[in-house]
């Protein structure tokens, strides 16, 4: 079994196809809303799946997973913020906005990891799925706090540029927090999980073709589109520069290691579940966080965080990261 056998999973190959199509300037293009439809399908389907399993779950273990998801979401952005400042390539507010992305998660990366585990016949716990739903939002809160701290520092450093405006960004903190926790993807994922958990199991069986049979095909289409999007962003790589690009590769490794340690040592998962928590720690959001940062930290440049999250970290995780976190999980949890 090669360490990089995930390269031959159809979904990952489709990702590569999209990426290459963009690099060779193919006119391949999805209709505007298809990516959104596919991501709705994937969230509903994974939510239903998880809900059915969670109905059988242990409450205490589920609660521990929730608490660790919150802690990871709070801790990772702070590490990222420190690293970004150490590069000395971005301002405080850009660093705050980028860091928030790395505390949150990418459902696309998570699903690719599930495809990877499936292709290797590895069983995994269902709790990481709750963690996926939980971890979309807390990083946003940390991002907001880092941004408002940064604003204070910026105003102190350059008082001649006028007093900081009271309404700058933070004026709508309540709205932004509400939007972070009622983000469409979060509502859809948690809602589908609840439906899966409480629905009549007999009736759920009729959904089998929808949630299971066509799932991998839909994931292939989704990753094809994400490959196109990543290829498009990859061109912006020059604009973010080498130091930031390196952050987009190093940060997921740090998050992955922390995730793997939490997955096995704190939550006691086996290799499959530990790999998934590693993936959660490593991945960067491109769903809930970018719009929240747009609203809350308008001073930060979106092309930095979108390029890093979509153009650097996402492809890295899909191609190299997942097998790396799996190897780490084997190392830590292999004997268990």
């Amino acid at each position, binding site marked *: 079994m090669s360490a990089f056998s995930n390269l031959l999973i159809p979904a990952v190959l489709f990702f590569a196809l999209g990426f290459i199509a963009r690099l060779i300037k193919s006119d391949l293009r*999805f209709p*505007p809303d298809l*990516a*959104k439809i596919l*991501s709705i399908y994937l969230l509903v389907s994974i939510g239903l799946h998880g809900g059915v399993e969670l109905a059988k779950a242990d409450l205490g273990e589920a609660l521990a997973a929730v608490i660790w998801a919150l802690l990871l979401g709070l801790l990772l952005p702070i590490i990222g913020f420190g690293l970004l400042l150490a590069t000395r390539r971005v301002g405080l507010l850009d660093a705050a906005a980028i860091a928030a992305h790395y505390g949150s998660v990418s459902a696309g990366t998570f699903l690719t990891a599930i495809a990877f585990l499936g292709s290797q016949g590895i069983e995994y716990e269902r709790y990481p799925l709750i963690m996926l739903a939980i971890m979309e939002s807390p990083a946003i809160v940390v991002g907001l706090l880092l941004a408002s701290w940064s604003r204070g520092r910026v105003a102190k450093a350059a008082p001649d540029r006028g007093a900081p*405006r009271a*309404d*700058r*960004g933070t*004026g709508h903190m309540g709205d932004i927090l509400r939007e972070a926790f009622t983000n*469409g993807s979060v509502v859809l994922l948690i809602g589908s999980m609840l439906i899966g958990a409480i629905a009549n199991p007999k009736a759920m069986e009729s959904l089998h073709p929808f949630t299971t049979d066509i799932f991998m095909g839909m994931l292939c289409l989704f990753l094809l*589109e994400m490959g*196109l*999007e990543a290829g*498009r*962003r990859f061109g*912006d790589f020059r*604009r973010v520069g080498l130091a930031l690009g390196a952050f987009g590769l190093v940060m997921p490794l740090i998050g992955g290691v922390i995730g793997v340690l939490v997955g096995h040592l704190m939550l006691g998962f086996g290799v499959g579940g530990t790999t998934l928590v590693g993936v959660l720690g490593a991945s960067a959001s*491109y*769903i809930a966080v*970018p*719009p929240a940062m*747009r*609203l809350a*930290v*308008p*001073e930060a*440049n*979106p*092309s930095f965080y*979108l*390029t890093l999250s979509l153009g650097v970290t996402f492809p890295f995780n899909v191609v190299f990261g997942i097998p790396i976190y799996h190897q780490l999980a084997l190392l830590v949890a292999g004997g268990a």
Partner: protein
Amino acid sequence: MHRLVPEKLVTVITTDVLEHRLIAAVRRRGASGYTLLRARGAGSDGLQSGNLEIDTNLLLKVILPPERMSGLLDDLDALIGQGYHLTVFVADVAVLDHEKFERPMET
């Protein structure tokens, strides 16, 4: 000859996360209506491909009487002051059935 009456056309291009705030300003400043389109392009915020939820722009067009325009521009200016990237331009237009543009939207 048609009875054309001069009005102002305000066009705004910006990220679609600002939609609610822009519409609130348009209503508050007494415009009679607005038109919103999804847009894509590139500029100071980088590429806005319009393919994903997170990188879509909007293009907002509002026609309103000249005396109400300045209030709306104040609101847009305040957003720019907060750091948002807005492209705003104003044009003179002439409209048919101008009474329609005098009636503010019901809030």
